[in-house]
């Protein structure tokens, strides 16, 4: 079964703990592994074993690669103060508010997120989705 078949539970990104993540197969195992690696916790081996049991050796290595990559990317983004890319800034305004990303220290003074933008974001996503489908015909 592919994760692509479902809507994804975006709140899992910032929730303290996750039993399961709707829409992402083995999402809970992946989140536990990422949490342990970033915290350099003694649970790294246990959580990695759980990913290995679910997804095999290749899954562990690829998951480790993605975690490592984003340990890198966050420092580039936060160290240089880049703004959110224009279209994404508008399309994600409501989601960033709902899952608490706008409360991060790094959000201060970066990007606009007024109520109007948050209301407009889902409409813009629907419009963009239709546009993409039309263009792909």
């Amino acid at each position, binding site marked *: 079964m592919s*994760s*692509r078949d479902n809507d*994804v539970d975006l709140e*899992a*990104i910032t929730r303290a703990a996750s039993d399961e993540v709707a*829409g*992402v*197969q083995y*999402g809970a195992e*992946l*989140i536990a*592994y*990422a*949490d342990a*690696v*970033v*915290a*350099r916790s003694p649970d*790294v081996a246990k959580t*990695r074993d759980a990913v*290995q049991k679910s*997804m*095999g*050796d*290749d*899954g*562990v*290595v*690829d*998951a*480790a*690669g*993605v*975690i*490592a*990559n*984003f*340990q*890198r*990317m*966050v*420092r*580039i*983004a*936060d*160290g*240089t*103060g*880049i*703004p*959110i*890319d224009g279209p*994404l800034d508008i399309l994600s305004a409501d989601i960033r508010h709902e899952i608490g990303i*706008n409360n*991060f*220290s*790094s*959000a201060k*003074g970066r*990007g606009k997120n007024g109520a109007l933008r948050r209301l407009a974001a889902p409409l813009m996503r629907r419009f963009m989705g239709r546009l993409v489908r039309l263009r792909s015909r």
Partner: protein
Amino acid sequence: MTSAIFAEAPYPIRSDLDRATRKAWDFLGKPGSWWTGAERAAFVAEVRSARDCRLCADRVDALGPHSVQGEHEIASALPAVAIEATHRLTTDAARLSEKAIREFNAAGLSDEAYVEIVSIVSTVMGIDGFCDALELPLLPLPEVQAGEPSRYRPAEAVDDGAWVPMIRSDGAGENEADLYAGRFTPNVFRAMSLVPDAVRNLLDLLGAFYVKDVGDLKARNSLDRPQIELLAARVSALNECFY
């Protein structure tokens, strides 16, 4: 033929990932644009020292990074401002600000030299993070190559909304024509374009650690795209990264 850099790993490591890591690690020991090979290798040691620095840990727990005073646990003879920037990037990047960067400038660290530090710190955090995730021993410090920094600054780098100058998506000159090469160029790919080799290093590792093409929704065989993006978003959230 060179041996695999992760030959002792308990899991089979893809050859492209092994090769990209070796290339990135070797790059850290070579003279850069603004720092020598010896200085760049010293930054690697400094990142590792920062990860266990008591002052940095106390600052992370404090309301503001300047509310705790003390001395960093240092591993190099790099200039004090470079050590401060390295420790902040390693342990508390989310609370960096434009004011902090201007303070680094005032203490003698140019934007160009700072961006090269961002490149080094982020590369080390990525590769050491991979070792942490698989509980592999950290790689030995990179082999230092002699030579002087090129001091190359692309003339096209301008103020484009970040704290440091960047080359615009449509503004790369002849020397940097390969950087964006018709790709979708999100700001995070342009962030270090003041030091073009830092962007080249970023993209080399990106294909091996993440996805070869950010627009390719098929991603890798073992992880589908939602799984990849869940991991990416979770790590970003744990680091309180707004971007």
